[in-house]
């Protein structure tokens, strides 16, 4: 999941300065959704090795 996310973020980062605040707000929402996913996986204990 997170590899796909890097694919989306890298092109956004290249044009970050040209896109302005709106693009940043959208990316912030996207990152928040990802954070929720990470917390869900963490709480489900899928991040444990054993």
């Amino acid at each position, binding site marked *: 999941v*997170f*590899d796909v996310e*890097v694919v989306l*973020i*890298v092109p956004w*980062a*290249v*044009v*970050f*300065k*040209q896109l302005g*605040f709106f693009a*940043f707000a959208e*990316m*912030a929402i996207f*990152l928040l959704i*990802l*954070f929720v996913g*990470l917390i869900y996986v*963490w*709480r489900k*204990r*899928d*991040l*444990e*090795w*054993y």
Partner: protein
Amino acid sequence: MLDQIFIHLKELLVTGAGKFISGTWLDLFSMVINMIAVLMFAPLLMMYLTWLERKLVARIQDRWGPNRVGPWGLLQPIADGIKMILKEDITPAYADKVLHVMAPVLIVIPALMMFSVIPFGRGMVAVNLNIGIFFFISISALETMAVVMAGWSSRSKYSLLGGMRSAAQIISYEVPLGLSLIPVIMYVGNLSTRSIAEAQHGFYGLHWFVLHPWGFLGFLLFMITGIAEVNRTPFDTPEGESELVGGYHTEYSGMKFALFQMAEFLSAFAISAMAVTLFLGGWNGPVLPSWLWFMIKSMGIFFVLIWLRGTFPRFRIDQVMAFAWKFLLPLALMNIFVVAIDYYIPGLIGYIGSWIFMLLSFFVIWAINSKGTAHHYTGSVTAPQIPAHPA
């Protein structure tokens, strides 16, 4: 003048060849010169990095290190090379022979390819790719393919475990590694390593990204994930001697083993050189020529890697994985907000504010992680049990 000496040398060669060939052939000749320069520089560098590492680790452990062959043991790498070549080349009877021979070759290729995008000095980059650092991280991940191949083809439990661990580790650490570069890309607006180094020009060549809050955090993240990416101590679980004999290179001997060593040292140097390019100002610096600055800084970072190797114990594999997913990944995501604060709030307020935000997120994530039972969430106060579910 001294700054551009290698460039002038190359121009001399190209104009000399220009009398005999022209057009596309001349471009090809120029590229071949770059290639030869990298291909000659890298093995020579690797030989003396091994010497440096052995000497320094010996000092840390209160030993002398190599001191018999040549003055200060300086000819030791050559003696080692001769020994490696003359040694009998053993292939295990039940090994997958093709893959077993291919793996050491395939691991060296990405290690050398990583050197092609490193700017060694002002204008001294072998290929000025416009996707420079993206190329770098993708190539550095390729090395794991060869490690898994070596682990699989050896037909040994230890090798296979080492290969599998390497694969798991690279999948986890690739994510924070990629994300730790995002702030730099956002700030520069370009992926080329050359323009990233140029963007840190100014303030007597000391306008380094590590002085920004996002650069500081990004530098730490990049170094940690980079060390994990090239399988060096404290993250060298794929080859942990005390648990897996030698990990993926248990069954290798002679020149094939030497190639694995070579790839390890080259990629470790490439990671430290890339850390210098991205965060420590690249070749920028006062007074001294640019390539000398670059080498001094890279050697400084490589010294830190050796220092870590000499002083840190190895992590357990579950600790390694938990560290990536629970600590480095949230921090790398927060770092994007740090650079946004630095960019959208101008002046000193934004600068200090982003420092505060960076430190705050660092300590919050640290607190969540050190709260032993946070990830168990069972509501009970008894000691956590190891669950039975396979996962």
